[in-house]
């Protein structure tokens, strides 16, 4: 364990944890859009900037990827930190001028209006979608393309991604709601990444369960009986109940 001081509060944390994690455990508020427990820190949104002091020298670092050290002094709300953070939020608000989540964030940190030219993007390029697909799902169906101001998240050649299993983890983690899942009659559609995959229906009630490729993926990963994959949650519950009743009545 090492001791660090965050906003004059001394806390004891496990070695090798990052400042942001340590602060979160103490309910100290540091905004972060590209950070997610379980994923490698990305350091892209830069909202989690804090000031650190080490042997008398101060500097600004991103707390999501700065590991704690004994005696480290962290300040999350110095004048400079707040000013930098506000301009970064203002820049994000200009990029996503109509996005509700970004508007809420801006309001929370005291940015009411962006003085820069407004655009109507939803994606902030935090990369959570790309990283969850790579680090957790292991598929790397989507990635970044281009660079500089032309950078964006896309599937290869902007075509339906072959590796995508349609699990929707990308949409689930997206902090701004830029990626949306649409379950149609027969297909699951994730338009932002050009994904369109047939759904599998419950063998009992006919309701959609999950995309076909996701089921195949899960079958490969686990050794559960086949039947489970083709039964929706509701029917599974009913089946268990039925079996239970049958078992009790036999007795």
């Amino acid at each position, binding site marked *: 364990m090492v001791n660090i001081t965050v906003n004059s509060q001394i806390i004891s944390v496990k070695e090798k944890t990052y400042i942001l994690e340590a602060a979160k455990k103490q309910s100290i508020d540091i905004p972060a859009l590209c950070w997610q427990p379980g994923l490698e*820190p*990305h*350091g*892209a*949104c*830069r*909202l989690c*900037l804090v000031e650190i002091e080490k042997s008398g020298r101060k500097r*600004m*670092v*991103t707390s999501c*990827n*700065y*590991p704690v050290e004994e005696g480290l002094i962290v300040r999350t709300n110095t004048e*400079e930190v707040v*000013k*930098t*953070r506000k*301009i*970064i939020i203002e*820049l*994000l608000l*200009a*990029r996503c001028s109509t996005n509700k989540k970004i508007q809420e964030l801006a309001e929370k940190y005291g940015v009411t209006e962006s*003085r*820069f*030219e407004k655009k109507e993007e939803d994606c*902030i*390029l935090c*990369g959570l979608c790309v990283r969850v697909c790579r680090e957790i799902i292991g598929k790397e169906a989507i990635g*970044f393309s*281009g*660079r*500089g*101001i*032309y*950078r964006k998240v896309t599937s290869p050649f902007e075509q339906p991604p072959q590796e995508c299993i349609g699990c929707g983890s990308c949409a689930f983690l997206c902090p701004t709601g830029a990626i949306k899942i649409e379950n149609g009659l027969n297909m699951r559609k994730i338009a932002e990444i050009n994904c369109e995959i047939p759904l599998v229906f419950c063998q009992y009630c006919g309701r959609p369960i999950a995309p076909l490729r996701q089921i195949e993926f899960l079958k490969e990963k686990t050794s559960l009986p086949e039947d489970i994959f083709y039964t929706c949650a509701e029917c599974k519950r009913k089946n268990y109940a039925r079996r239970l009743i049958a078992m009790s009545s036999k007795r």
Partner: protein
Amino acid sequence: MKIKNSSELKNYYENLIIKTSKREKRTIVLSMGTCGIARGASDILNSIKKEVRKRKLHNRVEIRVTGCHGFCEVEPFLIIYPQGIFYCKLQPADVRQILMESIEKNNIIERLLYTDEKGKKIIKETDIPFYKKQMRLLLGSNRFIDPANIDDYIAQGGYQSLSYVLGNMQPEEVIEEIKKSGLRGRGGGGFPTGRKWELCRRAPEFPKYVICNADEGDPGAYMDRGLLEANPHSIIEGMIIGAYAIGSNYGYVYVRNEYPLAIHHLNIALQQARDYGFLGDDIMGKDFYFDIEMVKGGGAFVCGESTALIASIEGKPGEPRAKYIHTVEAGLYGKPTNINNVETWANVPLVIKNGWQRYSKIGTETSKGTKIFSLVGKIKNSGLIEVPMGITLKQIVFDIGGGIANSKRFKAIQTGGPSGGCLPEAHLDLPVDFDSLSEAGSMMGSGGMIVMDEDTCMVDVARYFVNFLKEESCGKCVPCREGLSAMFEILTRITEGNGKHEDMDLLEEISFAMKNGSLCALGTTASNPVFSTLKYFRDEYIAHIEKKRCPAGVCKNLVHYEIMSDACRGCGACLKICPVSAIQGEKKKPHSIDDTKCIRCGECFEVCKFSAVRRK
């Protein structure tokens, strides 16, 4: 043939020297770097070859093709040794006369000599004022070296530093020597080289890598191209010495894809170094293996940043890494990695050869040795120069550069590429070293020096760099990507005459956030060109914003061309040159410009002999 130890190298060197001293042939040295070739040096070479054949001069003359010597302004040029006669601004037609007069006979052709400011003809290259104030420790031997021939390098004493190091020094002693010399990284960062090596040597993991950063991305800078094209072995030798000191067996040179000739020469040099046994197993008879692989860049400025460069070598997009751990501890493939710039590596053999005492006598208190700059822009003598650290900007611009071209007035000097800034006349007395220029809001950087005159618009220059960076940034972090995008929009509206007074504050606020918040050095320094022009040339911003005027006459929307009918003779020169046919008029009658078609290229303004075209 392998050279197996220091005495073999010594013998080989002595034989080379004896061979040259016995030679009775004259040598024609032709500078054929990329710039020389662009100026027609290949045609000159072909004519020389043809004439030599025709005149059967094989036994009397030898041709040596070298890299760039530095004085690009007067290319193509050649030097005839042993006399050292320097002929410049050559045409293929001149070759015949040169061979007749200066090779077959002993005459000097006056008209092909360099003429200085006062009209005096100068015979020897070294007597030209451009070279006089320079200290050419690295570039000086370029004229003796055919980069495709390792023997030329050895004849200049090449690989003797390596031989000395391997024969007489422990790795720690090499590091100590470099530390004492005061050598600092020439790529722009200025980190003490010896300390970097030491950190990398001490890092516990293996293997260790050494990398030469030859991804010279700063626009307006070509020092590294010059060295790679002209003297690649000096870099290779430096890397081998560094690898020995650090304890590394694997090296990489990461070269820009835009430098085909440099890549070609480096490839040849690496192969020759392997053939001679300077790379590979048991170098100079010592139990030491080291080899170098060349990696071509993909055309991305950000790859000059060390962690982006590493990502690129690993076969990934060149995105800087978001980690607070130095590459000397965890770099390429997560292993200790020492990255130095081309010029830094080239300095290493020199430090060893001269000893740290002599080396550290050159320069200032904190910056030792010489520095190569590419002196370009609106300057009379463009070219690569090498000067001792601490020389003033004024000496560079006026004594070496010969002042501003076309009798215009000096306005600014831009150093440090997109991470640097523009300094006005008042700062010309600043000494050029790692620290002084930074204090003034610019930086020495890797060595680009772009001179600007009264016809350069500083708002346009700021917009140029922001435009450059918005496409060259990797786009990963918000302040850099969105900040550059916002800055570009603001600067564009200022140059179009739609700027507002608050825009200058906005630019400063974005600068602040980018400096504090960006992920890598590209972003933290990206606002320097904007910040420095706002600081020193604020009046130009104000003229654009308030008076809707571009004082330099550059910003298209704020400039109009018209033909004054009383001055126009109707010669038709402008009509002929206009690329978009925006000029009409009958012969011998005043012409006129259709403003809706005009693209403000200024060609008519330049071509008019009667000053009838007015820019306002």
